[in-house]
């Protein structure tokens, strides 16, 4: 069979489709849906008070962070070095024998 004839045959089959039977009791099913269809539940809402509390907490955290970031850092005191200086030990004289 030629390609054109085959294509035309396929297209013609559109007209040879018999109506398919509908599953029985469609009306009963529709009525059941209408009876049982619950209204969609309204979306859960957060109480306004909680929204304000969370916003305030976040603002407070932000302020604390900014303050902490702006405060000048304390001068670094290298602990071990200050102790060594106080007792007169230094790295250069670590192996000296003239105590």
């Amino acid at each position: 069979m030629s390609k054109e004839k085959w294509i035309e045959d396929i297209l013609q089959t559109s007209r040879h489709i018999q109506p398919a039977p509908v599953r029985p009791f469609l009306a009963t099913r529709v009525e059941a849906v209408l009876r049982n269809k619950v209204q969609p539940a309204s979306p859960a809402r957060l109480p306004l008070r909680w929204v304000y509390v969370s916003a305030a907490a976040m603002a407070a955290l932000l302020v604390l962070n900014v303050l902490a970031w702006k405060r000048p850092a304390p001068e670094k005191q290298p602990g071990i070095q200050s102790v060594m200086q106080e007792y007169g030990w230094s790295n250069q004289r670590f192996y000296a024998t003239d105590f």
Partner: protein
Amino acid sequence: MLNFDHDAAAFRDFIAMHQERVYNAVLNRVQDIADAEEITQDVFVDVYRNPGAWRGEAAVSTWLYRIAMNKCVDHLRKKQRRNRWSISGWFKPVGEEDDPAAGDFFHPGIAAENREKTTVLFKALKRLPHNQHTAWVLHEMDGRSYKEIGDIMQLSVSSVESLLFRARQNLKKILSALYPGNL
């Protein structure tokens, strides 16, 4: 004006009168029996809830077809989106994930001798753009006139004609690639 609020019997009669047409148009469009049943059911639920949407400008059947076809397109788009983003889609071979022609559909109203040809036709139809597919189903499978299709799809008769012309051209191209002699 339709109103079924206090008349269950009238609503049942209405469903009985239109169910076969609506169901078959939907079935031809979505190519899935379970989906077609669900969409048909939804169409009548919508009709019951909002009968005032029919203003008497067109036949009731035209209005029903419009609701049904819109629901079909929504359903198919959702399905496409779901398939595109599903995890199983990530593991399919390249090029297969968006293939709309995957899976064969066997229409229950087809004689055995035509089954093979119709399966190929349904495969090809799935690759058409939504509006061309809808126009083809309504005209070629459901026998609606250009005027009716125009009313259903809210298009002019000339637009419907051109839509059907393009659908035919595209189907020929798609079928040409599916021709068994090519293999």
